[in-house]
């Protein structure tokens, strides 16, 4: 496999780096502290057409590739993981299923708005009783004439309240289990749809995470995404793709933590010399830089697989498992190198450690990734 | 082209509203030295409208001869009428060297003239010497953001032209009572040269003293932490009767105005005292202040390059030392006055 980036990918990376450094990083601490949605970033992403990077120009996308998009999530997350979550949930989860499963009419109606960022997208699968085991869906959808009526609730929904469209999963035929789940495109203005309480989270404070409530929510029949009963497949395929985005976010967090730490250990002195002169620091850094580079290679391999292969569940799961656990490990060890200062909010490292944890949990926990990987190993 | 025909060191005199810019006097001083080494004379080229009142000043600061074009089309400055006059004078009088100030006027006019005459031009020189053997002008200037110095020659073309950084050269001793002969050059500035109209002049309102004119400068860098901390520099400067200056970092960060920036992309200063507070001393900064007579640097980082040019370096936090210094100076000055 060729890991040399093309000239356009190189230039795109330079662009993402500049935007992250100049525009995203200066706001990261404030967004975390105030637990507020990164609206400035969203505005900027709209202006510079970051909201549909991997999608075809036919639908108003940028016409780049998956790897370029993942590099964007990586670089943005280096500066602010919560902003990375917003972008990744919109692109990988909110838009992707419509690109891949939408009818011509649905694509024409929603994609230009999603790819331009006029609409923000979201994805609603998780329920209080259906997390890792998505088949426990309680939300119901009943066809009544020209529309479905949805009842139930979803939790932990990223971009909730700010999103304009939600890809929502609900049972159309409970008796069929997984095969009774269907997917719908729900607009925020549909009657009976509302956003519930906002979660108070350990990390990614800037990401809006809320409950969604469906009370006799009217969804036009033409907003059924894919065929009835195909919802579970759509959800799983979307998550395969979304996991690469989370891997990119996790990688970015680790890289961001390393950048901060390398700067710090050169400046901070103990016993009369910079921390960087101590062998403990040097060896810790060597390990972390190496594992982070390995994480990047796994991620890029998965991103390229998405562009070239039909199935890439295994590559995606490996990338997410490794990048997420690396992010947790690296941020923890970096914080240790910072010592007491690292534990304070004066430095960004504690935020990065809090942000890293979620990458081991959402869009399939690390345990779910191991289930996927072992299934392929034992095949 | 016969090189022997080209003689004399010419200085383009920059005047705005009949006030001569300081850099022109500095150039006359330098030109005097160069002319002595070349065995020739200094000619001041004065372009403007109603400028006859300026002859004495030019004589005083080193002009052996004055060429003047006095025409309403020369006030205010626009490029082409000035370029036409300089080109005509160069063709007629054939100077060996022409010097311009590296100012917003000189750096616009000189290249236009160089292209018209078809000769070389060296920008932003900080050193000018005469080659002992060839008598050619050796022009030294910073390049790569001040990281390296390059010495440039213009061996096969005349005149040899340079723009020179303001604040770098020293004025000559005034020639009291000397009156240089004045020759009015008869040039008609036709409509073909007047393609640009100045419709409005907006003066930058500033009650601050130009840092290039200040005898004492208290300069702050990134180590000052935040813009509010520049207040303590102001207080120190006030006690010493000086001005506040800044490194590029603080200008880029929007803490202070660009007009107090010292360095490669700012101003070159040579005050009698320069106190650098929380300035690490990037080479670009050093380029603008290392000629100061006495440099005192306060910085937390013992490896800061500013210490390499400082006469006295103090390793410590400017944020605590500066207020302390201001207080002690007040005491010291009060004591002295009491005596």
């Amino acid at each position, binding site marked *: 496999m060729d890991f040399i980036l093309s000239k356009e990918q190189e230039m795109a990376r330079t662009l993402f780096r*500049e935007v992250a450094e100049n525009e995203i990083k200066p706001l990261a601490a404030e967004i975390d502290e105030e637990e507020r949605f990164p609206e400035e970033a969203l505005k900027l992403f709209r202006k510079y057409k970051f909201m549909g990077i991997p999608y075809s120009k036919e639908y108003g996308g940028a016409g*780049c590739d998956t790897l370029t998009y993942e590099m964007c999530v990586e670089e943005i997350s280096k500066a602010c993981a919560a902003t990375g979550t917003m972008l990744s949930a919109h692109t990988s989860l909110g838009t992707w299923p419509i690109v891949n499963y939408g009818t011509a009419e649905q694509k024409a109606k929603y994609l230009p708005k999603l790819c331009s960022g006029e609409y923000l997208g979201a994805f609603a699968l998780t329920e209080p009783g259906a997390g890792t085991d998505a088949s426990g869906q309680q939300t119901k959808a009943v066809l009544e004439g020209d529309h479905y009526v949805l009842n139930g609730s979803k939790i932990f929904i990223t971009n909730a309240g700010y999103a304009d469209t939600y890809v929502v999963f609900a049972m159309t035929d409970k008796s069929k289990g997984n095969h009774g789940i269907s997917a719908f495109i729900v607009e925020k203005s549909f009657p009976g749809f509302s956003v519930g309480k906002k979660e108070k989270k350990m990390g990614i404070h800037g990401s809006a995470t809320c409950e969604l409530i469906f009370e006799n929510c009217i969804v036009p029949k033409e907003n059924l995404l894919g065929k009835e009963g195909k919802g579970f497949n759509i959800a799983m395929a979307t998550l395969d793709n979304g996991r690469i985005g989370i891997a990119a976010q996790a990688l970015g967090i680790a890289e961001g933590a390393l950048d901060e730490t390398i700067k710090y250990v050169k400046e901070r002195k103990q016993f009369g010399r910079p921390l960087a002169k101590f062998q403990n620091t040097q060896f810790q850094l060597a390990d972390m830089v190496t594992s982070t580079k390995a994480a990047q290679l796994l991620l890029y391999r998965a991103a390229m697989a998405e562009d070239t292969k039909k199935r890439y569940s295994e590559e995606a799961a490996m990338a997410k498992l490794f990048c997420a656990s690396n992010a947790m490990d690296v941020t923890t060890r970096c914080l240790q190198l910072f010592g007491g200062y690292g534990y304070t909010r004066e430095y960004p490292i504690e935020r990065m450690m809090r942000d890293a944890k979620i990458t081991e949990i959402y869009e399939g926990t690390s345990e779910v990734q191991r289930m996927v990987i072992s299934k392929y190993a034992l095949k | 082209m016969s090189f022997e025909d080209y003689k004399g060191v010419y200085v383009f005199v920059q005047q705005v509203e009949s006030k001569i810019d300081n850099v022109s006097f500095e150039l006359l001083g330098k030109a005097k030295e160069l002319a002595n080494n070349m065995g020739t004379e200094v000619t001041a080229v004065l372009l403007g409208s109603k400028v006859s009142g300026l002859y004495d000043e030019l004589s005083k600061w080193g002009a052996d001869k004055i060429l003047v074009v006095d025409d309403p089309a020369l006030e205010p400055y626009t490029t082409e009428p000035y370029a036409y006059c300089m080109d005509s004078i160069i063709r007629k009088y054939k100077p060996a060297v022409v010097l311009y100030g590296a100012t917003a006027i000189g750096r616009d006019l000189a290249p236009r003239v160089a292209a018209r005459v078809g000769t070389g031009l060296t920008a932003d020189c900080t050193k000018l010497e005469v080659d002992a053997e060839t008598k050619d002008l050796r022009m030294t200037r910073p*390049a790569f953001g001040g990281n390296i110095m390059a010495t440039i020659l*213009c061996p096969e073309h005349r005149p040899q032209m340079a723009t020179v950084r303001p604040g770098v050269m020293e004025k000559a001793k005034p020639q009291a009572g000397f009156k240089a002969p004045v020759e009015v050059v008869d040039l008609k500035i036709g409509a073909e040269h007047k393609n640009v109209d100045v*419709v409005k*002049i907006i003066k930058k309102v500033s009650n601050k003293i130009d840092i290039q004119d200040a005898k004492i400068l208290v300069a702050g860098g990134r180590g000052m932490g935040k813009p509010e901390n520049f207040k303590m520099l102001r207080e120190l400067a006030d006690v010493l009767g000086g001005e506040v200056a800044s490194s590029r970092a603080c200008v880029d960060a929007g803490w202070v105005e*660009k007009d107090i920036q010292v360095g490669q992309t700012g101003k070159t200063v040579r005050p009698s005292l320069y106190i650098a507070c929380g300035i690490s001393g990037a080479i670009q900064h050093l380029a603008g202040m290392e000629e100061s007579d006495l440099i005192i640097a306060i910085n937390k980082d013992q490896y800061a390059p500013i210490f390499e040019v400082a006469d006295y370096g103090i390793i410590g936090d400017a944020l605590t030392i500066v207020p302390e210094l201001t207080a002690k100076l007040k005491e010291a000055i009060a004591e002295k006055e009491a005596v």
Partner: protein
Amino acid sequence: MNIVVCVKQVPNTNEVKLDPKTGTLIREGVPSIMNPDDKAGLEAALELKDNLGARVTVVSMGPPQADTVLREAMAMGADEAYLVTDRAFGGADTLATSTTIAAALKKIPYDLIITGRQAIDGDTAQVGPEIAEHLGIPNVSYAEDIQVEGDTVTVKRQYEDRYHIVKAKMPCLITALGAMNKPRYMTPGGIFDAYREREVKTLTRKDLDVQDTEIGLKGSPTRVAKSFPKQLKGSGTVVTPSDAESAAEYIVDRLKEKFII
């Protein structure tokens, strides 16, 4: 309206460091960027395009690698790009460079030419006005704002202590100050299009109407006699006082010694 913007690829001199042992420049690993003043000029041109409609063409003289800044300019929104490149152009000083670029510009339609005031590697500010002279058009340097109305361009021209608001008829050349605006970013899609769907046209020696004696090293009146690392004056006394008070006392004593107070 046809606007031509001249851009140069330069090493990011903010990241240039000196080898502490040899005193020579470390150029390795120093990223190449679009010269900041040129980028501001490009932004000004793109704003005129946004507001009034214009065709923006970018021109760069340099080695084949300078292709990158032209792609970048297209990814920001420029319509067309020319690379003026030939071994014969190498070693040019500002006069030979401006002669070459002016010859290239004669091949391209223009109403307005915008260059950066100066490049951060050379800091000369000479090429813009020299191009204007070769083309026989007016120039306005140090622009902080550019407005166009009909065939007239109005420029806020910066001086040390004042501004001139000047008007000139097009065609003319303006040199832009980096501080005049904040250049837009590229777009990811713009980058991919710039590489995959657009071309950088090349102009070489044979395409230009110039004499061999006017270009490259031969056409350059100036010669670099030598270059050397900047010599610093050398450090004086460096002390580490125990606290702020003793630091202040130390300075006051030195100022007394030097009769400054």
